[in-house]
Structures are given as structure tokens and as C-alpha cells.
């Protein structure tokens, strides 16, 4: 439906899909950290796996999604917790900045691991 063709709708989808991905990742993340209970060797073996290029790429994705969920979420908190300055302005201008900031975080991550 063409009523969806605007930034705020895209932000809604981005926020929701990133949230879903992060939710699914969460138990695995906790299980991986829990490996430390089984000794440093088990934990190191897992960390070696996490260093594989494909796994690293997935980690990059998760870092970007976490940052995206944060920045899009901050816009929603702003809209829901503070009075609107203009009823016609749902701060969609912040969406581009949020996406850019998330990609910047992803850039710093890449810069650190390559």
C-alpha cells in the first residue's frame, strides 16, 4: 500500500526487524558467555569460532542492528515522552541520522577487527 511509502514506516520496520533479530540472538549470546563456566578452554574454542570471517560478518550485522534499534528507539522515546513541537512533525528527519549513526558504529567495529 502506497500509504506506507515514507521514512517513518521504514523506521518502524527497521526497529521491529532489528528487535526480532536481537531477541533471537540473545539466548545464544548468553549461552556462549555461559561457556566460561566450563573453563577457559571451552570459552576460547568458542571465541576461535567467533573469529571465522562468516561469523564475524554476522557479528557486524548484530552490532549494527543493536545500534539501529537503539537510535530508532530513542526517536520513539522522544516522541512518546516529550510534547510534540508540531503535530505534523513525527521527527522523521531523525531517522536518517539514526541509520547513519548505526552504520558509523558498524564502521568502527570493522575498523577494529580488520
Amino acid at each position, binding site marked *: 500500500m502506497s500509504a506506507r511509502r515514507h521514512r517513518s514506516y521504514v523506521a518502524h520496520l527497521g526497529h521491529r526487524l532489528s528487535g526480532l533479530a536481537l531477541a533471537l540472538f540473545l*539466548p545464544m549470546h548468553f*549461552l556462549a558467555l*555461559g561457556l566460561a*563456566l566450563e573453563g*577457559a*578452554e571451552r570459552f576460547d574454542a568458542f571465541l576461535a569460532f567467533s573469529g571465522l570471517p562468516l561469523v564475524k560478518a554476522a557479528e557486524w550485522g548484530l552490532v549494527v542492528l543493536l545500534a539501529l534499534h537503539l537510535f530508532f528507539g*530513542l526517536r520513539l522515546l522522544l516522541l512518546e*515522552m516529550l510534547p510534540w513541537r508540531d503535530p505534523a512533525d513525527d521527527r522523521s528527519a531523525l531517522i536518517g541520522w539514526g541509520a547513519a549513526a548505526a552504520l558509523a558504529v558498524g564502521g568502527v567495529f570493522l575498523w577494529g577487527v580488520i
Partner: protein
Amino acid sequence: MSEARLFVLQRLSALVMAPMVLLHLGVILYATRAGLSAEAILARTGSTPLWPVFYTLFVLAVAVHVPIGLRNVLREWTSLGRAGVNAIAIGFGAISLLLGLRAVWAVSGWAS
């Protein structure tokens, strides 16, 4: 719990988590740059009790925030009934909470 209460809890947990996520992102960027090893991670997280305390609070907020969001998505995007959706959300929250606290315990260094 009422819908109004769930709404408030999700937004307040989001408010609490916003600075936590920023800090966590900082830790991720710092830690991956230094190279991930069990020794480095455990040395950092066990260096001061502040880290386990911080991550315990983080896990608690996550265990509130995520199930409520998941519940919305499941209700709107699946044909599951209300009872089923609530059960999945509560189950997911409980599992996240237990695994999360276990993970904090594991890296706190307090177990050894």
C-alpha cells in the same frame, strides 16, 4: 498485568537501557579491537564488581523489554491466540532472565 502497565514497563526499561546499550556498544568496539580471548574477557569483567552489577541490571531490563516487544510482534504477525502469545512471551522472558543471569555469573569470576 494490564496493557497500560506493560506499555509503561517497556518504555521505562527502554529508557534505562538506552545508556546501557551505548556503554555495551563501547565495550564491544573496545573488546573486539583488543582481540577476543577468554583471558582478556574474564580479566575485564572480573576486574571490578561494577561490571557484574551493571550487566545484572542490563539482563533484568532486557528480560522486561524483549518479551513485551515479542508479544506485540507475535500478536500482530502470527495467528496464535492471545493465551499462546502470552505463554511464549513469558517463557522467552524467563529463559532470557535465567540464561542472562547465568552468563553474568559465568564471566563475573565469582564462580571460581
